[in-house]
């Protein structure tokens, strides 16, 4: 336990000292979302229909971009290696790192999303479901993305390769996330979608840390 607390302390300290990283992800999210109306025209009905999908895709892409910060820096300066030698279970360490990463990179998106949702004319209920779906879904994105990030450490091709690996795996989250908001808007109720998102989250929490740990060992050989 001591080890995890120190690890959490370090990552938190680093996140605070590297505020720019956090902000760039957020700004990317905002810009991406703003591009869509510029591309398809400002017609309110269209935007209202597109809104949930656009916000979800933008959150997904912003999340994917931030994956480069999950392990790469630690890999480069040797701290990742030390983590592999830590007596604590590597899966637990991965979970801790992913948690801080989510707090620093994805939580701001979740909080920002309702504001942006207003730009698309989404109703109060829809905004609430949107936020909830992102709250449940973005941790899954972080965890599943971590698999891609850990497999591609030190490789050329960088971000594009990670996207190729990770985007197909993101699709279920996207479908149920955006679907939840659509369901609530059309009056069907988002309960089903949100429960599935919850189930995906539990599955991700249980299964991905071990996979990421294995991937890290493979990449650091």
């Amino acid at each position, binding site marked *: 336990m001591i080890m995890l607390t120190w690890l959490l302390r370090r990552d938190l300290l680093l996140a605070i000292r590297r505020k720019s990283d956090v902000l760039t992800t957020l700004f990317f999210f905002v810009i991406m979302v703003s591009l869509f109306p510029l591309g398809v025209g400002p017609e309110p009905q269209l935007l209202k229909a597109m809104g949930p999908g656009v916000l979800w895709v933008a959150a997904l892409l912003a999340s994917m971009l931030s994956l480069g910060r999950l392990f790469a820096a630690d890999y480069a300066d040797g701290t990742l290696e030390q983590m592999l030698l*830590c007596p604590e279970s590597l899966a637990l360490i991965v979970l801790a790192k992913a948690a801080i990463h989510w707090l620093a990179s994805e939580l701001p998106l979740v909080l920002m999303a309702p504001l942006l949702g207003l730009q698309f004319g989404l109703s109060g209920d829809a905004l609430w479901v949107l936020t909830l779906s992102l709250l449940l879904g973005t941790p899954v994105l972080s965890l599943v993305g971590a698999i891609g990030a850990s497999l591609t450490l030190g490789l050329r091709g960088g971000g594009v390769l990670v996207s190729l690996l990770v985007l197909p795996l993101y699709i279920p989250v996207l479908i149920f996330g955006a679907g939840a908001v659509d369901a609530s808007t059309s009056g069907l109720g988002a309960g089903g979608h949100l429960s599935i998102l919850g189930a995906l989250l539990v599955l991700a929490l249980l299964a991905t840390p071990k996979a990421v740990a294995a991937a890290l060992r493979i990449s650091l050989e």
Partner: protein
Amino acid sequence: MRGDSRLFSEVGFLLEPGGLLHVRGPNGSGKSSLLRMLCGLILPEAGEIRWNGVNIRHSHDYNRALTYLGHLNGIKEELSGLENLRINCGIAGFDIGEKTAIDALERIGLDGREHLPVNVLSQGQRRRVMLARLLVARTPLWILDEPLVALDADAIGLMRSLFELHLENGGMLILTTHQELEIAAGTTQEIRLSS
């Protein structure tokens, strides 16, 4: 194996308390790979590595008994020497108080620089932050890859006495170094790798 080529084969040794193992060989002969294999970071193609008779892959306390300092510094640039030392020890399982940490950093020659972010320190000074761990976090086995690089004569002298003290207390040391170093040890073994 590195890539398609075999780096070395038929390497074997037994290290006991007070024992020093010196791994020698030209660049590219696989010294670092051997050390990393001994840490458990690389799986051997054939053969086994055992700690107290148990294969390290199945041993839960091997990591607790080991301190490995490799080529990379293993420290964070944005944090200070003090923070780095306490965090690195913490992650290895040793909760070090601030006073102990500052003390260690002073002894290793970073007096007055403990609170500076590491990115303003020189290469040699960063190395010392990493090495300070050996002063405070005591594990039986030390595996060190080129620990004396970028250190001046004083620091090398300090490290040598540190190594000798460690061995005297029953610790074990495996290292690679290009320098000619006389370290008094219970038993000294050498492995020479060729390219």
